């Protein structure tokens, strides 16, 4: 959701003002524990692979790769099968607050050439239990009503 610029400017001024009001030195924020987030997350729809998300902190920073799957069938009488999308995409601008990982994924290479100018899609992955999380595509219509999102299960990477 885009924030109206006036509201964003007001929020920025307010935030700056609050920062100046503080007479105590800023306390360094504790880094969230990444161990619950790092790994390979797999989500299924209709018992078929839907998305695989690999999260790692190798290289000293949080990074990841996401692979989406298409569900296809040759005819209406054939069973559905899962087929990986053409390529995996790196996750962009990942931010983890200890519970939720927010990131974006480029859509440019999804169905080229018609998608080459597409804006990135926004996702969040929220931990809901040990090795379990929900993945929400915020760019999809109705995502605000998506609840916990697509169930994802983590395994070690």
């Amino acid at each position, binding site marked *: 959701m885009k924030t109206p610029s006036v509201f964003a400017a007001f929020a920025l001024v307010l935030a700056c003002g609050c920062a100046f009001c503080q007479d105590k030195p800023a306390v360094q924020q504790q880094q969230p524990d990444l161990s619950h987030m790092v790994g390979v997350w797999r989500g299924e729809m209709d018992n078929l692979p839907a998305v695989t998300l690999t999260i790692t902190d190798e290289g000293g920073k949080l990074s990841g790769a996401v692979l989406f799957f298409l569900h296809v069938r040759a005819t209406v009488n054939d069973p559905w099968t899962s087929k990986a999308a053409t390529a995996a995409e*790196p996750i962009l601008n990942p931010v983890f607050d200890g519970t939720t990982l927010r990131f974006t994924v480029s859509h440019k290479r999804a169905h080229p050439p018609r998608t080459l100018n597409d804006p990135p899609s926004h996702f969040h992955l929220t931990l809901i239990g040990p090795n379990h999380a929900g993945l929400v595509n915020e760019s999809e219509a109705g995502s605000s009503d998506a609840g916990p999102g697509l169930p994802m299960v983590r395994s070690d990477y």
Partner: protein
Amino acid sequence: MKLSGFAAEILLMLAAGVAVAQTAPPVAQEPSRTAWLGVWQNDFDGQPGVIVTLADDTGELGGTVVLNMISRESGEPRVVGSVPHVMVHPRADNETLTFEVKTPRAPRIMKQFVMVLKSDGTAIIHCPNCDVAPAVELTKKW
């Protein structure tokens, strides 16, 4: 036979039968980063084997590697496993791109990969510190 594990993924490159000579022919003069950006792929029996995606959407070079596991168990070759790997420490140096990929299972060794751009627009990828991994030719899809 169903392949599994990272070693099998590397072996897949060998089995692909698309191994090419380790020494690449003379390359184009100092291609920019742009030359690397996109999706690179090799095919094995009509199935995608190795897929490398390189992007700089954030201004920083990054990417992914998918090493597909292909099985002939049902007769026809088909992809039975696809795990996306994160490209770590990618560096584009003239005609060569290097990066590392984390070994998913113990021992946790970072596998080093080298991609060399050829003059015909294809690229050769190989893994110098993998047990068995011949060079494989990749074609840029887009």
